[in-house]
């Protein structure tokens, strides 16, 4: 098994590197490849089971888009053929959308793999605890960002919990089809933007979420799901007892009525 961590020099904010740290324990037999800014990603020429890309500064978002744009067709092929799982956390999610609208109204074209776009509102920072659901499990997480994402066209995006009933992550590009649903359904907090409880993007080969930081360590059941999906079935996770103790404590706190989210 091969795991490729893209651009850890710049994609390393907010403790996101914890996820790769934990995956190394979860997948002890896997080969981990860290791809620097001047390297061609391994997935371009070789099989990779998991590509991980995480939070970065807004300046580096634009840099990474420039690096990945020439590889867009290859990425789309890998996604369509479901040969590689792409795990995107934090504002890495915005890279696969159609564009990012800057504070001055100008646009940075993104990879255009999904029909949603991001709107930056710097210096307004949006911070929130997020309690969400994923396949019957509760997800505890956190988001902190300068931007929100919106679907490009008002169609049905995900399920009926969408407050605005808008938006399939649409037909803006051919690869975006109706199999797309949100990754998480938010119970407390907000989703891709303040008007929806739908959070992230999920296809058979893409798990993308605005949640950042040690997402996998904080959510052992989700991590087990991910590891199983990669075909590396495991009975218990590394440090299973301690990780679950931390999760249970946090879940109880997140579930308290009236908890302050920001």
């Amino acid at each position, binding site marked *: 098994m091969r795991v490729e961590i893209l651009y850890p*020099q*710049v994609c*390393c*904010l*907010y*403790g*996101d*590197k*914890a996820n790769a*740290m*934990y995956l190394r*324990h979860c997948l002890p037999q896997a080969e981990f490849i860290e791809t*620097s*800014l*001047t390297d061609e990603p391994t997935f371009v020429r070789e099989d990779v089971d998991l590509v991980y890309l995480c939070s970065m*500064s*807004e*300046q*580096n978002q634009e*840099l990474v888009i420039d690096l990945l744009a020439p590889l867009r067709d290859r990425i789309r092929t890998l996604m369509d053929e479901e040969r590689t799982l792409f795990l995107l956390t934090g504002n890495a999610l915005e890279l696969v959308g159609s564009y990012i609208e800057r504070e001055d109204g100008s646009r940075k074209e993104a990879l255009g793999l999904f029909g949603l776009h991001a709107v930056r509102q*710097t*210096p307004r*920072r949006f*911070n929130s*605890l997020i309690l969400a659901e994923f396949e019957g499990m509760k997800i505890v997480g*956190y988001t*902190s960002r*300068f931007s929100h994402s919106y679907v490009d066209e008002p169609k049905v995006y995900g399920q009926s919990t969408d407050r605005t009933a808008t938006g399939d992550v649409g037909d803006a590009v051919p690869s975006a089809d109706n199999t797309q649903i949100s990754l998480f359904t938010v119970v407390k907090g907000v989703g891709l933007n303040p008007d929806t409880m739908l959070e992230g993007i999920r296809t058979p080969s893409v798990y993308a979420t605005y949640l*950042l*930081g*040690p997402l996998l*360590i*904080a959510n052992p059941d989700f991590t087990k799901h991910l590891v199983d999906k990669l075909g590396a079935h495991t009975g218990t996770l590394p*440090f299973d007892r*301690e*990780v679950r*103790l*931390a999760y249970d*404590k*946090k879940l109880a*706190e*997140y579930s308290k009525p*009236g*908890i*302050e*989210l*920001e």
Partner: protein
Amino acid sequence: MSSLRAHIALVLSKMTYRLLRVLGRNASNAPGLVALKVCPDYLAQVARCPLCVCVTGTNGKTTVTNMIADVLVANGYSVSTNRLGSNIAPGIAAALTNSVSWSGRPLKDACVLEVDERASRLILPFVKPTFLVVTNLFRDSLKRNAHPDYIFDVIDTYTPKQTTLILNADDLCSARLGEHAGNERIFFGITEVEGDVTQSVNLVADYSFCPHCLTTLQYDHLRYHHIGHATCPSCGFSSPGPDYLVRRFTQDDQALIVEHGEATHAYPLVNEVIFNVYNELAAIVALTRIGLTEAQIETGLSSLSVPDTRLKQTTVGSVRVVQAMSKGQSCVSCSRTLDYVRQEPGRKVVVLIMDDYYDRKNSVEFIGWIYDADYEFLNDPDVVQVLACGPRCYDHQVRLLLAGVPKERIVCCEDELDAPHHVITDGVDAVYVLYDTSTVDVAMKVKAGIIHGLEVHQ
């Protein structure tokens, strides 16, 4: 003072100051709040002193601000400063109120202002400092400061073009400020010292690649995180050469040897800890550019000391109990403290009391920062026990396990006050209590409990 509104704001601000002083308050913030409420552009309206120095950056700005102000005062300058107030707009406004007369005429020779780096966009364009000292830029609170690129952009965008920048050449995160705007820029740095490395030992380095060709930078010497002197092996980009360079600082003769051009001068060393050497150097450069002579600076510095509130110790029998500031939410501050603990001799116990006191009341602290902090430094045979304390103790426990700390050395205490009951002291040389600014009270209780336990044990 150009507008009637601003003048009314000034008068009300001064009256507020007088009233609060009569009531025995330090009046360092409220007069500014009043001024800004009455006149939102008060900072732009109030008359400026002949000299204005602002100091910003992630770490060290308070120390540098105080050093500059104290040395100026020691040399006969009248100075207005916000040392007792906030470093955001109200604190700045209050300091400016104190720098002018009731009629708005400047009374002081200089304003020396500590400026919060994120709030600098609301201050620098209006205050228009003569000099802006930037100590360094590191990642800090996620909620407030996002990331160093954001803070860089804020300072870079809002610094007036006519301001002279005094910058840390060893910090590439801030050294490129003013590059495009064409500000006059003066750099300070410290030459290679014992203990410097060429490969990072920290998890976080916020400036690791060449801005021109993206090649990974090579460090000729690296001090901590991204602080050091870097070059690009591909295109030749490098850290700027310092105009003022510390050649040597010696504990024996308490001297700080600074080279500037062909000249070298020995200043009194205020504190030998490396980040305080940077702080003193930044102050020396600012004072030099203001126009003080070496002798004047030397005289001013000779009476100064850096209050060591961040590190205090009590010895009971053969065991030292050390309180060490380790700002929560700040992976760099935490890593620096963990590195210090690691390098201290002897067998140690480490008590972590860094969970934010305010977040715990009715929220849940985002704990991602601990994965940017070098908990790996605690994976050391001499660290015989680590107590993870506070509501996030189980998260700290997982982090410690991932850092390789053996499970049997970790103790979790949801209630910090339980910690003294679990601390082992037999065969231990020191107990380190690491605390956040928000947990100082509970940390002092824990420290007292540990000391009490040691005294009873004797």
